[in-house]
């Protein structure tokens, strides 16, 4: 029983983080049909903001808010620097500019801060533990689950009930048509980047909360996770990204718990084999997105 509770908490907390990561990536992809490879660096920006403010004496929550705002600004900057100037040209151009922006941010951190890990302040709350049904778990895991639930609910509300959300969904379905009907393209795209930055900022706090330090390459793992989760879930669907995130966490955790020591070394090979199987079965991912729409 204890074991089962532990397992469920692990899957949900890891899945919550993965789902938020994937959602931040897919919201931009849905509209632009382009993967933002500088997405991981938004997490890095949040981390380094925390590091730079660590000596300021501000309450942790204020620092966290500033970090999230910085991630949002970095998200919008990604749009202005890497996407907008070349958006109308070719997919290859945007692919390369987003890679370039990612490299630029990473190397800026490396040069101006340090290549070595820097400590990020964490609230004591993150390391406290609670016992649920005999399973001892850090409070951080429960916070992650709660944050994921709240953000996913807010996000669903935004997409369904607000003008901005409806416009974004329209743009994701058929961008040209939406523009013809008066949806301002630049505003929608910038909003998508801002939301992407917000999710990256929050996830960055939770993710770095597990680690305690930030390095220039911290965004690589989250980017990879987000990418795989969206591929499993369906590149075109927001709910698919969330499902993909939780599924990936379920696969990883199950393998972690059940594989024998000799096989555990090859866990990633098992994970990716399963991903391939899922894609053979559902080439477009688990959830199909809106049927129409060309890249704009």
């Amino acid at each position, binding site marked *: 029983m204890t074991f089962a509770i532990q397992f469920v908490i692990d899957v949900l907390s890891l899945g919550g983080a993965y789902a938020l990561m994937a959602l931040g990536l897919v919201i931009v992809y849905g509209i632009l049909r382009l993967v933002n490879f500088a997405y991981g660096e938004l997490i890095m920006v949040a981390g380094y903001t925390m590091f730079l403010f660590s000596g300021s004496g501000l309450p942790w929550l204020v620092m966290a808010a500033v970090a999230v705002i910085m991630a949002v600004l970095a998200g919008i900057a990604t749009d202005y620097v890497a996407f907008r100037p070349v958006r109308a040209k070719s997919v290859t151009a945007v692919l390369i500019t987003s890679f370039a922006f990612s490299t630029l941010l990473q190397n800026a951190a490396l040069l101006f801060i340090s290549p*070595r890990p820097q*400590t990020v302040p964490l609230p004591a709350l993150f390391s406290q533990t609670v016992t649920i049904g005999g399973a001892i778990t850090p409070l951080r895991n429960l916070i992650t689950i709660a944050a994921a639930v709240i953000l996913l609910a807010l996000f669903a509300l935004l997409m369904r009930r607000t003008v901005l959300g409806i416009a974004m969904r329209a743009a994701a379905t058929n961008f040209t048509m939406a523009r013809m009907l008066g949806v301002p393209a630049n505003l929608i795209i910038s909003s998508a980047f801002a939301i992407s930055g917000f999710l990256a900022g929050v996830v960055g706090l939770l993710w770095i909360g597990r680690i305690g330090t930030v390095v220039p390459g911290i965004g690589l*793992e989250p980017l990879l996770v987000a990418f795989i989760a969206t591929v499993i879930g369906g590149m075109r669907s927001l709910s698919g990204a969330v499902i993909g995130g939780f599924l990936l966490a379920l696969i990883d955790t199950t393998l972690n718990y059940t594989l024998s020591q000799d096989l555990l070394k090859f866990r990633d090979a098992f994970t990716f084999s399963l991903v391939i199987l899922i894609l053979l079965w559902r080439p477009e991912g688990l959830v199909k997105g809106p049927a129409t729409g060309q890249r704009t």
Partner: protein
Amino acid sequence: MQITTKSLASLTALLLLAGTASAQDDKIIIGGAMCLTGVQAPLDTPGMKGAEVAVKYLNDNGGLLGKQVEFINVDGKSDPVTVGNAAVELIDKGADLIMAPCDFDFGSPASREAQEAGIVGISACASDPLYSSWSLGDKQFTLSMWNTTMGATAADFAFKEKGWKTAYVVTDQFIAYTKSLSKYFVDQFKANGGEILLEDTYTNGDNNFSAQLARLQALGKKPDVIFLSSYGQDIGVIIRALREVGYDAPVLGGDAYDDPGMHAALGESLGNNVFFVTHTFMTPDAHPDMQKFLDLYQQMHGAAPDTAFVATGWDTVMLMAEAVKAAGSTEGGAVAKALEDGKFKLLTGDLDYGTTEEGHVPNKAAVMVELKGGKPTFLGWRTPERLPAP
């Protein structure tokens, strides 16, 4: 056509020779292929900064063999192919000695090029026993102790000094370093008579240790010591995870723990009862010349070093200088012989290389450090009596 190619080739060769010869006349060039960007940067950047301090020190004190020493670094960019190309470029520029990155995977391409060119290459801190004359050639060395020494020192410290009889071993499957370190610890710990309760695997970057914890809890026994061989930020993640759920047994590991960022991240509450084997300690306790080095470093870089790995760079250059002095030239064979024959008292411990047949095994002392309240404290130098076979 053939004639043209031939004459072009010989012309190039002549030019190269001329370039090399003129460079060698007035100065001695140490070429560094250290990685200043990418995953290897956290280890190589400090080494390079330490090397720069050493080169300045040599030049301020009359140079080497009456010549000035020049240090040129070409960024290896944490990519083995680029590291190899960087070494080729450095050799073309007239490098007499090569300083290779801090890891077998990233450093060996530079050493292979150095070997090809007949000059000595020394890795600043690669510790895998693969970094040997067996695999790289008779003019290649590593400044670091091998993982055999590191693992054995940890095992002897645990069993003989502290009397910890049972161990739980976690191995990160990240690189050769993390895997071989556990292997040699287990070998020595068992040879000492210790018992390994459980060996578990971790994947670098997971940031999730819960499955391993569940297995440890299912064991029903608490180990005397936890040996954790991981890399980078994950060490802190795992120690945090263990401590949070109440495993307060001592944690033991290798030089990857020598990271002030990790110590600060664990902080006062979690950074206790952690022990590690490393290269040196940044106080005069470790070496009488340490303060001199720290002062010079502060002068040159304007800040105190943020990791003890800076000493490996200083040592690499000073070791090269001593060997060149003993050999009386920078010729590869002569310098290699001087390195094999000599005994060196370095900031990172007394060093005595084995012969080419012995793989240039670095017989070296290691430092034990304890983390108390997030602050490292120096426990002293250790030299294991027996080493596991590499």
